[in-house]
């Protein structure tokens, strides 16, 4: 089956992975930089540096990766790999994401099991944990820029975001219910707004 073409954008020649090997090594490099979570690195490398995706495309793909079961960044790599080189691309991206980190994690488990309990190692883990929290938060803050083009309009987007933050971050409600309720209402609203722009003759891409 031929791979689906990347999103049409007539304005410029889009950056894209050169080959399956490029995909594998790119995702390997991403994964190896991703201490304490890979998403921040994926956003920075694929959107800001390599420019394979725009911020808006990244948010759209992230929404799909997040709603489907499985590790989110692994889902994201699978989707991006498939888009450029079909199933082989998906497998290459997946392998890149997992192969080297897996070797390192097992080596750490086998070799450093004894060191992990020292106060210094525990402290280092705590310090990295504090930074990892920052990476996740900052990635979310950066993605806010993608909402400017959202057909639901800025006030509705902010309201939905605030409700979600309170439900998950403060009230700690189960994710699945928040996704189903807030996500359901939001999707219906977006459906309605997209219909309106279409009726007005506006061609929202």
């Amino acid at each position, binding site marked *: 089956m031929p791979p689906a073409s990347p999103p049409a954008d007539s304005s410029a020649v889009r950056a894209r992975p050169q080959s399956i090997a490029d995909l594998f090594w790119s995702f390997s490099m991403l994964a190896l930089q991703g201490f304490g979570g890979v998403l921040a690195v994926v956003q920075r490398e694929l959107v800001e540096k390599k420019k394979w995706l725009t911020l808006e495309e990244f948010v759209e793909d992230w929404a799909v990766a997040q709603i489907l079961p499985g590790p989110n960044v692994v889902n994201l790599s699978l989707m991006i790999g498939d888009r450029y080189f079909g199933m082989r691309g998906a497998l290459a991206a997946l392998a890149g994401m997992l192969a080297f980190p897996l070797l390192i994690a097992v080596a750490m488990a086998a070799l450093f099991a004894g060191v992990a309990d020292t106060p210094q190692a525990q402290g280092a883990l705590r310090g990295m*944990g504090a930074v990892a*929290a920052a990476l996740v938060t900052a990635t979310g803050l950066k993605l806010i820029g993608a909402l400017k083009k959202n057909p639901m309009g800025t006030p509705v987007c902010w309201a939905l975001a605030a409700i979600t933050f309170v439900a998950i971050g403060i009230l700690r409600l189960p994710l699945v219910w928040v996704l189903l309720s807030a996500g359901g209402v939001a999707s219906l609203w977006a459906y309605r707004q997209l219909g309106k722009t279409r009726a007005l003759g506006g061609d929202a891409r």
Partner: protein
Amino acid sequence: MPLHLTLTAADWLGMFVHFMSLSLLAVGGAITTAPDMHRYLVGEQHWLTEDQFTSSISLAQAAPGPNVLFVALMGWNVGVNAAGGLSTGVMAGVYGLMGVLIAMVGIMLPSTTLTFAAARWGHQNRELRAVRAFKQGMAPIVIALLIATGWILASSQGTPLENWRPWLLTAVATVIVWRTKLHLLWLLGGGALLGWMGWV
């Protein structure tokens, strides 16, 4: 206290099936299934010690790569236990790697297959109003989810008043990542160093 287990082929198959069934429940990441893995591996089957369970999660967090690798480390530990502990050398390695393989294929296969099919369908039908509405509607929600996740991770450090140092570190690092292009590894290295020296 290491465990010494004898695992039959049926036991390995049981672990494989259990991980496969958790795979499709892992909405929001594999870490959301950790409580059930604990119930199964530590509580019910006694294949892992409490310490092995906890260190699998913290080691995978400390290692580079996706956090799902904690599942691989649990498989590794089950395998090592089944071999009779790390002191058995090559045996432990072989059994450990078998555990890694079974755990990882189990947790990944169903979810990746579903993601592959669903995402491909979604991409091929990306001009459909319903598909666009879903993605656009979900956008503010998944962005807020990320910020909430960061908040939850930071909150695990205790309250800002009592543990102001890790909170300060998180706050400063957030602004740096958000506003500058400083390489992320510098920040992680800096955090690790501050922690190593006992400041955090």
